[in-house]
């Protein structure tokens, strides 16, 4: 299990918050003790957090300021994984979170703007891995396709292009399903509201691939 996972890309609307909450919900349901840090000043996760609700056991800590790295270090003593959702633009808080993270997940929709943003974020992580703070322990990176529609040419094209260029794209992906926004209205995730449904299975597949990569395989280092 990764200690700290940060979802980052320099574009908004790609599903970072949904994916972060979904992974937290999945790991919560299988017995882990995740915590979410909402480092996005839009407070997408924090605004929906209900301490009395079905995901009340997954605390959401709003920390959009640059001291997010300290909050991560505090929370990782009691929680695993610490999942950090960041704002959809390059900013100091995101950089601070990435410096403190074990795995960076870069979500992207199958669209050229998202691909550009994903590659820019990948390059940012490469720069972070060149700092003294990350020498010898590079941030791992995995890209995840989100909001895809099964069998579309554009999704296949984006996958082929990224994989062909050597970017670390997960095989599992988050299909575009109405279950996410429906569950999100109450700050929940399909793993909680419909654990046997297709969306929950998608999330489980992403989580399992991440775990498999963490335990047994190589997630490409964003090294120079």
């Amino acid at each position: 299990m990764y200690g700290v996972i940060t979802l980052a890309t320099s574009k908004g609307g790609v599903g970072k918050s949904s994916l972060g909450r979904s992974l937290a919900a999945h790991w919560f349901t299988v017995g882990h003790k995740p915590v979410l840090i909402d480092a996005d000043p839009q407070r997408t996760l924090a605004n929906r957090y209900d301490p009395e609700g079905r995901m009340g056991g997954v605390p959401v800590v709003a920390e959009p300021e640059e001291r997010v790295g300290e909050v991560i270090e505090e929370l990782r003593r009691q929680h695993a994984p610490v999942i950090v959702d960041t704002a959809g633009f390059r900013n100091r808080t995101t950089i601070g979170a990435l410096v403190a993270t074990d795995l960076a997940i870069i979500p992207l929709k199958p669209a050229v703007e998202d691909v550009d943003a994903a590659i820019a974020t990948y390059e940012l992580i490469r720069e972070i891995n060149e700092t003294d703070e990350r020498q010898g322990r590079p941030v791992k990176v995995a890209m995840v396709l989100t909001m895809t529609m099964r069998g579309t040419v554009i999704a296949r094209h984006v996958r082929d292009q990224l994989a062909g260029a050597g970017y670390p794209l997960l095989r599992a992906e988050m299909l575009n399903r109405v279950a996410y926004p429906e569950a999100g209205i109450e700050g929940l995730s399909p793993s909680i509201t419909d654990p046997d449904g297709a969306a929950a299975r998608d999330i489980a597949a992403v989580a399992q691939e991440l775990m498999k990569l963490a335990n047994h395989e190589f997630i490409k280092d964003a090294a120079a």
Partner: protein
Amino acid sequence: MTSKKLGALLRSAPPATARAETPEPLQPFAAPDATSGSPQPRPTAKPPAQEREVPLQVLIPEGIRRQLGVKAAQEGRSLRELVLTAVRSLGIEVTEAQVKGKRGRKSA
């Protein structure tokens, strides 16, 4: 101590909170309609006009800031809630709705 490279990276990016926005949250779904079987939006009264919110950034001792973060995490509350609660204790009028913010209006 931040390294020179990381310092340069940080200086190249803006602070996250310079673009803070808090969109109006949607209302939760009501229970599924027995006749149609599909969830219907719950009718809600129009919320009262909200006073515009602005950022507050102050320098405080690091240890106090750390304790605030831990307290917020332990209680599942936001820093905003903690700060506004403290502000109210100074005698400044702060309503419960203002303390709760948008989180407090998300469910009936």
